């Protein structure tokens, strides 16, 4: 990967709304070149999607999320992947990762109530063949997500004019 591609990715990861023209000026390269690189990254699914990071709590929206530690039995040839797919295909699963350590899958669920989540775990998740056990941890508070502090009190406190 060349430096320009890396910088484009870093800029977009920080702020997906930057236009190719703006990026081109910032990196001192041609706008057409930036457009080309972005197109290629999108085609190759390096860039998967441009989304907004939303703080639902501020809108008074009651959302419940939970981390489910899942232990599963790996299968011949496919390892964890087949069971994993059966789990992550559910839209309730917001993110999911295979972990080292005492359990296998870290499954992040989002729902509108605790009941909805426990229902999903007991009827859908735990009953999948190959799932050995589940441990459910409800999220009490989100401090930071994807590198963004939810309630960042560090606004600009500088003097308006200084030498």
């Amino acid at each position, binding site marked *: 990967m060349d430096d320009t591609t890396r910088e484009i990715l870093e800029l977009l990861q920080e702020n997906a709304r930057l236009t190719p023209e703006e990026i081109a000026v*910032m990196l001192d390269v*041609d706008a057409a070149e930036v457009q080309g690189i972005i197109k290629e990254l999108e085609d190759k699914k390096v860039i998967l999607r441009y989304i907004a990071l939303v703080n639902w709590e501020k809108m008074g929206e009651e959302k419940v999320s939970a981390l489910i530690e899942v232990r599963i039995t790996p299968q011949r040839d496919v390892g964890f992947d087949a069971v994993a797919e059966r789990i992550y295909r559910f839209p309730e699963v917001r993110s999911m990762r295979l972990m080292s350590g005492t359990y296998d899958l870290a499954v992040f669920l989002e729902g509108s109530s605790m009941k909805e989540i426990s229902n999903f775990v007991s009827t859908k998740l735990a009953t999948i063949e190959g799932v050995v056990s589940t441990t459910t941890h409800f999220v009490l508070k989100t401090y930071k997500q994807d590198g963004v502090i939810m309630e960042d009190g560090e606004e*600009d406190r500088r003097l*308006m*004019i200084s*030498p």
Partner: protein
Amino acid sequence: MTQKNWSDRINPAVRSVPPSGIRRFFDLVAETRGVISLGVGEPDFVTPWHIREACIYSLEKGYTMYTSNWGLLELREAVAADLERTYNVKYNPKNEILITVGVSEALDLAMRALLVPGDEVLIPEPSYVSYAPCTTLAGGVPVFMPTSMENNFRISADQVRSAITPRTKVLLLCYPNNPTGAVMEREELAKIAEVAVEHDLIVISDEIYDRLTYVGEHTCLASLPGMQERTVLLNGFSKAYAMTGWRVGYAAGNPDFIGAMTKIHQYSMLCTPITGQMAALEALKNGQPGMRRMVGHYNRRRHLVVQAFRDMGVPCFEPGGAFYAFPQVSVTGLGSEEFAEELLKQEQVALVPGNAFGRSGEGFARVSYAASLDDLSEAFRRMARFVRRCGVRSRIISAPVKISDRQEGICQTI
């Protein structure tokens, strides 16, 4: 009882120092609502967390005492190692480095330690606001060497030579420059260094913006042949590590210079606050990656700013360092102050009138790009509107032109 006029009793040297040109404008900005300020002379980043956390830890551990007058030896050793690694200049941390309360104190100490009444100090202009007052308060006489956009705001060896008189003692340099963003090439500096040696001048080199160099590589003045012994090198942590409020800087130079400065420092300041020194130590130990990230951000915004002025049709020299652009706002038909005041009134964008940095800054404005991308784009939208109203023809907004394609780093009004 008659009111006594106490101002008569103020030392005339202090009385005669004019108040900072920035001050009046500061009050004006404070009265205005909804202002986006590009007039700030400090990073928009807060000090990186690992530095703040190290400082908190030092407080927990009870580091609340005086340090040696010179500063913590460990910090001086780290500074020496940093200078050697970066510029291959060697200083003895025991007697050639003094930790000060920012470069500001170091500059004052150097002036007071070196000047006797009547000594002349050569200062390139536009210049940082405290150079002339510090010179005057130490009994010296500031002699300005005007620089211009045509010369990329650089001074030449010839300029220095022709400004020298029998009373000239000190040459003060500041590159990358506040307010212009100018940088000097190594060859040009070497020629100036030759003049300094020839005329036995002492050079005070304020290199606080050294890490914020985007074009070419920064040359540490002390790294030039014959210069280390006659240079007082000033630097600090404010700009590179976003640590302005901590007030930690240093001076490096020969033991006679630094010893004399330390004498004044020990009787006035005693020592730099230990809390700031602890933070500075962490910055040198682990702050390089974070510093490089911030420099990358400034550089990208630098490109945006230069392009924005090109599009507006306002001539702007391409700054090679610091985080300032210095556009020629007189193209609007307004003077520096008039431009700044009208822009503030009509569009609520604050910047610093160029004449606050000396007479050769007239016709220009200092625009700091140590501001968020959002603020920068909004500020430039407003500024473009204002400039258009003044009758400046903007370029047709086009695909951005490669900045490096231009010659001389000057963009012309179309």
